[in-house]
């Protein structure tokens, strides 16, 4: 062997620490470390770094993952997203026709965010308000976490409006697939047990004032503020819904203004 083979470089020292060297080079490296204290100290330090990293993060792999990582749940969510997409397509025609008077008949050909959001929001409302045990994914007493999580997933800063003043308690929220991507869904409850939901996702629509849509068992107000579309859904009592929508609208409108910069 010529001398050059006996020189051990940085890469080889790393490979040695990581068990990536063939046996013959391993012997060479070990001999080298016996006579080069600096390199031996570096190798020891690198091993200690690895130990620190494993000590700090290793235990997490022994934890049972929380329910949100349940494969069955995640695949059901996929299925739900698919059915929601199909429902939205159908709704674009059905709702477009039914709401022709509001939508001026354009929606059937080119469903707008108004029709898509409203029909998805009402679907979600009907689906979740009847839930007794699992109406939401994150309960309302974890509001900061809820806001942070949903802002992150929806991709725009948003907050669940505080509607305590008009007697509505935040039950909590969840993430849903929506017409334009991830959508936030907040649920509120009146002392009487009546529930209202606020559905919120990104839109490219321009700002609009409140738009009222009435179905058979329920109704909704739709509006756009900044890059977010909102739908407040509830029982078909127009005045009550208007009061809640207005309260939410006022709060969001005030907050949104400084948060709209950048992008």
């Amino acid at each position, binding site marked *: 062997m010529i001398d050059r083979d006996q020189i051990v470089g*940085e*890469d080889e020292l*790393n*490979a040695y620490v*990581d068990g*990536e060297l063939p046996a013959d080079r391993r012997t060479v490296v070990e001999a080298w470390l016996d006579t080069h204290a600096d390199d031996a100290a*570096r190798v020891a*330090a*690198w091993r200690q*770094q*690895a130990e*620190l*990293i*494993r000590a*700090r*993060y*290793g235990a*997490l*792999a*022994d*934890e*049972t*993952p*929380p329910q*949100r*990582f349940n*494969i*069955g749940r*995640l*695949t059901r*969510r*996929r299925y739900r997203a698919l059915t929601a997409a199909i429902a939205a397509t159908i709704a674009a025609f059905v709702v477009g026709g039914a709401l022709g008077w509001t939508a001026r008949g354009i929606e059937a050909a080119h469903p707008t965010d108004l029709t898509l959001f409203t029909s998805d929001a009402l679907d979600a409302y009907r689906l979740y308000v009847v839930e007794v045990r699992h109406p939401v994914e994150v309960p309302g007493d974890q509001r*900061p*976490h809820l*806001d*942070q*999580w949903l802002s*992150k*997933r929806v991709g725009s*800063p948003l907050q669940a409006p505080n509607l305590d003043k008009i007697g509505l308690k935040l039950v909590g929220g969840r993430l849903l697939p929506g017409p334009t991507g991830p959508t936030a869904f907040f649920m509120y409850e009146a002392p009487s047990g009546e529930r209202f939901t606020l559905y919120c996702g990104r839109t490219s629509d321009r700002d609009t004032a409140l738009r009222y849509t009435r179905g058979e068992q329920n109704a909704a107000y739709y509006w756009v503020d900044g890059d977010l579309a909102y739908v407040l859904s509830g029982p078909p009592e127009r005045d009550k819904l208007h009061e809640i929508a207005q309260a939410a609208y006022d709060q969001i409108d005030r907050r949104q203004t400084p*948060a709209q*910069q*950048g*992008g």
Partner: protein
Amino acid sequence: MSEFHEHIKVAIPALRRYARALTRDPETADDIVQDTLVRALRSEHLFHGGDTRAWLYTILTNLNRNRLRTLSRRPVLAPIKDSDAATGGPESGGRDITRALDELAEDQRSALLLVVLEGLTYREVAEIQGVPIGTIMSRLARARSQIKAYLDGERPPLRRVK
């Protein structure tokens, strides 16, 4: 449960460990793991056998890279968190390993974690990051010398914008 689903399920604890070390933030980490799983399940038809685990690490690594890219493009309104994970808990303020990881460039951190925490080979890491093995080796060498310098108390290089 299909064999594919079973392989994914088994990998979840390790994915959470890797994501936590990669992001140093429990919530962000679990969000990324969830995105990884959703993407993997959605792309089952694209998966033509091979190592499910390495494939999941690839998705996760890319998702985090995209996340950091997006973050660097726009100003972030980050709420102040009372979580201690990002600062290293009781040792916060000191020179601990979490802070040392913070100082690394993303590709160096990912390479180091895949090797020392996840126990992957250089070849696997090269495939995950989509670069030659030589690049992985230099990323590891740089990561290690930078962590050593940091823990030894040398002045850290200018913190990169994430």
